[in-house]
């Protein structure tokens, strides 16, 4: 992540702002942002050139294990307060229809969609932000209650794509067009195309798309004929059993894991589960890169936390053995093992 370069004021504010996040100093962070507004920087720029990249930096620091989860949460909370302050400062008047912005069920990365919500608000839309992890039933009943011009859904984790698809379909059944965004749909939105849904790379593009109803409604059909082989559904059914056997296998082959504390054991179990979930999502959209990108990322994260790459390889091999009758899953696991081996 590089610091934004537009304007000297912004560049200076950038390092001050990051410092505030590190110190968990909400009031000083709000001051940094409001001073930029006082200096005449448009609210949209403050959100997109200060808050958004700072949040990405927070994520990177967590990934490098420089920041704890607690710090990441605190920093995110402060950014949310800053967003609220910037929005209150600008105080736009809604002149256009209602747009509903929400995170997928099980998604907690609420800041990026919050930024989209505020950019839409600044452009005159009447925005309802439903927040993090919105159950599909709640979203749909909201849409039935309030006439919405469009729904913007955020998904940060590709493993939520099957959920995302169900949620998109639910909105469509209510005749409300959907635009999606977030890293969960791939850096170039390729998995959004698979699911047949409009995708926006950033907040301004999302705002442009929302303003163009005809394009929003003209979406290509989903390309999911591969789901007919039932591999996805049967993998989801076998999740518990696979995680169980993978853990037993790991204990046998990597004796160090036998002395894990309960907390370490829990995070190992959830990592084993994530591997299955990402594999399932990769099967759902039938794309090797979804799984290989995840494996690459997981190896990085674990390496930064002292878990060697071969441990991931062991588990992938174990899953490959257990899923040898599922050709697509076997192909994905093989691609994943190559990623581990290449490191």
């Amino acid at each position: 992540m590089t610091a934004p370069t537009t304007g000297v004021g912004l560049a200076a504010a950038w390092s001050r702002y990051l410092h505030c996040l590190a110190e968990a100093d909400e009031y000083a962070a709000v001051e940094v942002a409001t001073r930029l507004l006082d200096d005449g920087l448009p609210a949209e720029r403050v959100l997109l050139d200060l808050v958004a990249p700072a949040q990405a930096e927070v994520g990177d620091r967590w990934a490098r294990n420089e920041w704890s989860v607690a710090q990441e949460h605190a920093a995110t909370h402060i950014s949310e307060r800053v967003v609220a302050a910037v929005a209150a400062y600008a105080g736009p008047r809604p002149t256009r229809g209602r747009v509903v912005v929400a995170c997928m069920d099980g998604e907690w990365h609420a800041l990026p969609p919050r930024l989209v919500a505020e950019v839409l608000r600044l452009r005159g839309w009447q925005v309802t932000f439903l927040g993090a992890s919105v159950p599909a039933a709640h979203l749909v009943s909201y849409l039935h209650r309030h006439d919405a011009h469009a729904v913007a859904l955020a998904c940060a984790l590709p493993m939520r794509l099957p959920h995302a698809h169900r949620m998109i379909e639910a909105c469509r059944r209510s005749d409300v067009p959907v635009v999606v965004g977030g890293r969960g749909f791939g850096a170039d939105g390729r998995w959004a195309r698979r699911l047949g849904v409009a995708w926006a790379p950033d907040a301004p593009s999302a705002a442009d798309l929302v303003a163009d109803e005809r394009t929003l409604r003209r979406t290509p059909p989903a390309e999911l004929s591969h789901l007919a082989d039932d591999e996805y559904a049967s993998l989801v059914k076998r999740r518990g059993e696979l995680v169980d056997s993978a853990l037993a296998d790991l204990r046998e082959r990597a004796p160090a894991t036998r002395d894990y504390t309960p907390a370490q054991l829990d995070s190992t179990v959830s990592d084993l589960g994530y591997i299955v979930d990402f594999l399932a999502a990769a099967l759902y959209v039938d794309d090797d890169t979804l799984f290989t990108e995840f494996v690459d990322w997981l190896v990085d994260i674990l390496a930064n936390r002292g878990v060697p790459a071969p441990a991931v390889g062991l588990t992938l091999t174990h899953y490959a053995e257990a899923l040898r009758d599922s050709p697509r899953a076997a192909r994905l696991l093989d691609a994943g093992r190559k990623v581990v081996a290449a490191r």
Partner: protein
Amino acid sequence: MREGLVVCDADDVVRHVSPVAERLLPEVTAGQPLAVAAVPGLLSGDFTHHGRRLRSRRVALSSGRSCWYVEDVTETASRADALLAERARSAFLAVVGEKLGNPLHPDRAASAVVRLAVPTLGEVAVLVLAPRAGRARWWRASLADDETPVVDNGVVSVADLPPAVVHGLDGAEPHAVDWLVEQAVEAGWLPGLTSADACARVVPLPGRDVPAGVLLVARRAARWYEDADVDLVRAFAARAGAALTTALLYRDQAEVADTLQASLLPVEPAEATGVQWGTAYRPARGGLRIGGDFYGSHRLTDGGSLFFLGDVSGKGVEAAVFTGQLRQCLHALHRVETNPGRLLKLLNDALLETTQVYDRGRFATMVVGVVRPCRDGGVTLTLAGGGHLPPLVLRNSGEVEQVPLRGMLVGVVPDPRVGEQTVHLDAGETCLLYSDGVTEARGGRRGHEQFGTDRLVTAVTGCQRMPAPALAERIEQVTCDWLADGDHDDIAVLALRATGPAGRTPRHLHAVPDRATTDEEREAPA
């Protein structure tokens, strides 16, 4: 013999014409070259001639002669066309049924109705809803360059409605349609069409007792509305009417439900000196936004605040209604009693009384506390426990303590044992109340394991410098991540953090916790 025969010699001169062929191809005469008759389309094999659909084929005979077989397929073809048209109509109605099948928002349903009507039923479709208070709202879809129609809407006073529409709103379907187009053009509803080159139909949309509205469809006069077309418009109108009626019914019911729900939702704690509140609330799955967990606070006249978090017996709406009664009880009682222990006993008596009235066992578990700011920037908490999970305290040292608060359920026995504790929080320290939806969340490897207090303590360890709202959200997130299949009980969290004298958390405390406490932390991918 339905097939006619035309036999030609090697020079393509007609030598024989059968009676059937004579009737189908009167131009063809024996003795003349076939080309002279110049039957258009004969060579193509499938053609229309004198209003009949004909199929022809040429068969080579010996010595260069040939024979043309000509068959009249008018009836078969029209049956096939009718079948195709019928199929197209069924497919169209199936799509309409699917799209309008959900209880939509009435405005959404209205715009969906007109959008679906174009282009199948007309180039322009206008829906006029039954008027309310002398004004009628209308939606219009018109065909654009491509297949996606443009939708707009507006309001018109009943006095300005075309007479045919008024007629339709009374439930009648106007039959004399010649002046209909003029009326629609005059109303400004048919852009790009004039009364001379357009035709239109109006059908009422059936409602609960009177029509929900009327649908006007119009297209260029090149294609008149035939009986089959009008039947299709009527079938569409029936579905559209049902959808609109459902949407209106849903809106009315949802309005009631929303109002009631809103009164049962927990109210965010009131601002209090020296305290930062953080809350999380996630009712058990479903469209319902309310449940059996509750929290809240009331400011006291002496500068302190009363706060509470609890859980009632039962589930769903009934439990939510009970929490509403409890909250109201507390609201009234805190004016006469501000000692948490005595307040719980009063509440217990009140509950027992209503239980006897309703002859139904209802009880609650809860923690009630009073927070008062101290001179050192910290706060003092006086806590009373009624059988609820003991609160946690996050100390500045990083330690997480469990407050040994016990006590019996509220609303079961007269004069219950109430646990009482006093806790001091230094500036920056946090007290955490939570419901059993957190600790009893089932997940893990096989999805049956409870989250438990130990995991909760682990999850908040190292979080002592988090703002209270972030801490509450973190607990909600960690709990939901733990849940295997998503089903859960109501989850409620109330975090209370001492902010220090200036209303700010102290800045000199470095926010980075010890590496030692975070090394083992690994969680959901960011």
